[in-house]
C-alpha cells in the first residue's frame, strides 16, 4: 500500500554540484527516494564524444565519486536512488554501479533506462527550431537526445531496482516518476501531473531552493551558506508538498527562495512543457508551515505534447581566451592600449575577436554606473577558431603582452575550451523507443 507521504530528496542539481549534501540527505532525510540531476545539454554532447572514442565511456565522470559513499547508505536506509548520470551511456553506467556494489559486497539491483539517443532516428530533413534550417545543414553533429519522461521510467521503478540510471530525461520527470509510481497516478491525470511537475521543477536544481544562488548580504541573507543543505519534498497523494531540508544544515527555505526557483527558466508560467504534461504554475499557492518548511499546492496541467523535444549537439570548434590585469593610475587607458595592440595583432585572422574590460563592461557590455573609475581593469580577449592550435593563438598573444605590451600588466592567464553548439528539434513520441534493462550485483540473479 502506498504510504500517505512520499519523501524525495534532491542530492545534486548539476553535473559539478557538491557531493556532501546528498550524503546528509541519504543519512538523515528519512527519504524514500534520492534524485541526482547531473546532466546539462553540453555535458551529454561531450559524453557522446567520449563514448565515440571508447564504447565503455560516455557516462558521468563523477559517477563513482558520487555513488561510492551513497550506495551503502541507501541500502541501509531503504532509499531508492534515481539519476541521469548515465549521460550518453546509461548501460555502461549501470555496469559500473554493479561493479561498485560487488566491491562493497552489497546486493544492489540497477535498472537502466535507454532510448533517449535518437540520432539514428532523426531524418536529415528534421527542422531545427532555433534556425528553421534542416538538420543536414549542420556539420559535425555529435549527439541527439530526446527528453524522455515518466512513461519511460515507470518500468524501471516497477522492477524494484535500488538504483535507476537514465540518460536524457526531462529534469522534473526524474522526480515526477517516483511520485507517479508511488501513488499510482494515471498518465493522463493532467491536474496531478501538473502539480507533481511543480514539485519536480522546484527540486531539480537542488540547493537553488534552499538558499543557494540567492544570498545578497544585507538584503537576502542566508544563514550558514557554507554548509548549504539540499531540499527534500514531503509529497501528498494529491501532489501538494512541503519543501524543506534536513535540520541543522545551512541555508533557508522561504517564500522568496521558493518563488525564485518556481519561475526559474520558465518561458511561459501558464504552459511549462515537459514530456509528461503541460503544467500551469500561475495558480500555485505557497504557505509557510514552520521554519524552513513551505507548502506548495495549486499547480495544474493540460494534456501532454505528442512530440519529444530533442537536444542536438554539434562540434563548433574551439574558443581561445586570454586575460591580463592593469591596476592603479591610468589602469583603464593601459588596458585599452593593450586591447588595441591585441586587435592589430589578431583581428585579420579572427574577424569575430571580442575584447572585454573586466571591471568595466565585460558582463553587460555597458555599465550601469558609467562614471565610476575602477582601480583595476582586466583585459579579456576571446575568439572562436576551427582548430585547437588556431584558438591557442589568442591566449599566446595576451600572454606576450608581458614584454610586448603596455606597462604594468600582470596575472596573465590563457584558456582553451572545446565549443559544443546546442540546437533542438521535435520528434514524434512513437519514434523514440525506450527500454529498461535490469542488472543485479549478485551474478546468479542477473536478468536482462
Amino acid at each position, binding site marked *: 500500500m502506498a504510504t500517505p507521504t512520499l519523501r524525495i530528496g534532491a542530492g545534486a542539481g548539476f553535473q559539478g554540484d557538491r557531493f556532501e549534501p546528498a550524503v546528509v540527505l541519504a543519512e538523515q532525510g528519512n527519504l524514500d527516494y534520492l534524485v541526482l540531476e547531473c546532466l546539462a545539454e553540453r555535458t551529454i554532447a561531450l559524453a557522446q564524444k567520449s563514448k565515440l572514442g571508447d564504447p565503455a565511456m560516455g557516462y558521468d565522470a563523477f559517477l563513482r565519486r558520487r555513488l561510492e559513499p551513497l550506495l551503502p547508505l541507501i541500502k541501509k536506509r531503504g532509499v531508492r536512488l534515481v539519476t541521469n548520470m548515465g549521460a550518453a551511456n546509461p548501460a555502461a553506467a549501470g555496469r559500473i554501479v554493479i561493479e561498485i556494489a560487488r566491491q562493497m559486497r552489497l546486493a544492489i539491483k540497477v535498472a537502466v533506462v535507454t532510448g533517449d539517443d535518437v540520432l539514428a532516428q532523426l531524418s536529415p530533413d528534421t527542422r531545427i527550431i532555433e534556425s528553421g534550417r534542416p538538420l543536414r545543414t549542420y556539420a559535425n553533429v555529435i549527439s541527439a537526445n530526446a527528453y524522455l519522461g515518466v512513461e519511460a521510467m515507470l518500468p524501471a521503478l516497477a522492477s524494484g531496482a535500488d538504483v535507476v540510471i537514465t540518460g536524457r530525461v526531462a529534469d522534473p520527470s526524474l522526480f515526477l516518476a517516483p511520485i507517479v509510481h508511488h501513488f499510482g497516478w494515471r498518465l493522463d491525470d493532467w491536474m496531478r501531473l501538473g502539480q507533481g511537475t511543480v514539485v519536480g521543477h522546484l527540486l531539480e536544481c537542488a540547493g537553488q531552493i534552499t538558499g543557494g544562488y540567492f544570498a545578497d548580504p544585507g538584503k537576502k541573507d542566508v544563514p550558514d551558506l557554507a554548509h548549504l543543505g539540499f531540499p527534500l519534498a514531503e509529497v501528498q497523494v494529491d501532489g501538494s508538498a512541503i519543501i524543506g531540508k534536513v535540520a541543522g544544515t545551512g541555508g533557508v527555505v522561504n517564500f522568496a527562495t521558493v*518563488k525564485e526557483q518556481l519561475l526559474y527558466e520558465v518561458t511561459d508560467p501558464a504552459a511549462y512543457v515537459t514530456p509528461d504534461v503541460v503544467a500551469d504554475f500561475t495558480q500555485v499557492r505557497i504557505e509557510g508551515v514552520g521554519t524552513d518548511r513551505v507548502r506548495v499546492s495549486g499547480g495544474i496541467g493540460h494534456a501532454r505534447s505528442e512530440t519529444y523535444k530533442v537536444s542536438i549537439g554539434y562540434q563548433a570548434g574551439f574558443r581561445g581566451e586570454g586575460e591580463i590585469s592593469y591596476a592603479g593610475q591610468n589602469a583603464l587607458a593601459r588596458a585599452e592600449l593593450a586591447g588595441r595592440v591585441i586587435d592589430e595583432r589578431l583581428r585579420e585572422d579572427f574577424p569575430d575577436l571580442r575584447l572585454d574590460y573586466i571591471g568595466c563592461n565585460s558582463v553587460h557590455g555597458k555599465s550601469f554606473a558609467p562614471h565610476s573609475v575602477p582601480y583595476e581593469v582586466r583585459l579579456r580577449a576571446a575568439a572562436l577558431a576551427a582548430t585547437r592550435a588556431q584558438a591557442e593563438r589568442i591566449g599566446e598573444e595576451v600572454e606576450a603582452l608581458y614584454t610586448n605590451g603596455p606597462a604594468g600588466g600582470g596575472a596573465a592567464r590563457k584558456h582553451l575550451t572545446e565549443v559544443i553548439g546546442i540546437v533542438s528539434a521535435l520528434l514524434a513520441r512513437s519514434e523514440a523507443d525506450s527500454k529498461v534493462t535490469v542488472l543485479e550485483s549478485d551474478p546468479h540473479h542477473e536478468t536482462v
Partner: protein
Amino acid sequence: MKLYELAHCRAGDKGNTSILSLIAYRSEDYPLLLQKVTATAVQQHLAGIVSGSVRRYEVAGLAALQFVCEQALLTGVTTSLAMDTHGKALSSALLEMEIA
C-alpha cells in the same frame, strides 16, 4: 529608486533566450511593478544586451512578473564569446532599473 529596493530576481536561460523573474519583496509593491516595469521599459533598460523582443507574464499569486527576452545576444548561445554565456548576471542588470 532602483528596482533592487523593491524586488528580487533570478535569471535563467533557454538557448538564446534569457528569462528574468521579478518578485516583489512585499505584495503591496506588486501594483507598482505592474505599472512601471513594462515589457517596453525592460527592453529599453536592457538595450544593447537584449536585441530581440521582450514578453512579460504576470503571476499575481506570487506578486511576480516574468520577462522572457529573446536574442539576449551577449548571453545564452553555447557558441557565444561573451563572458557570461548563460546571462546569469542579467538579474543584477534588471534590478539596476530606476523607477520613480
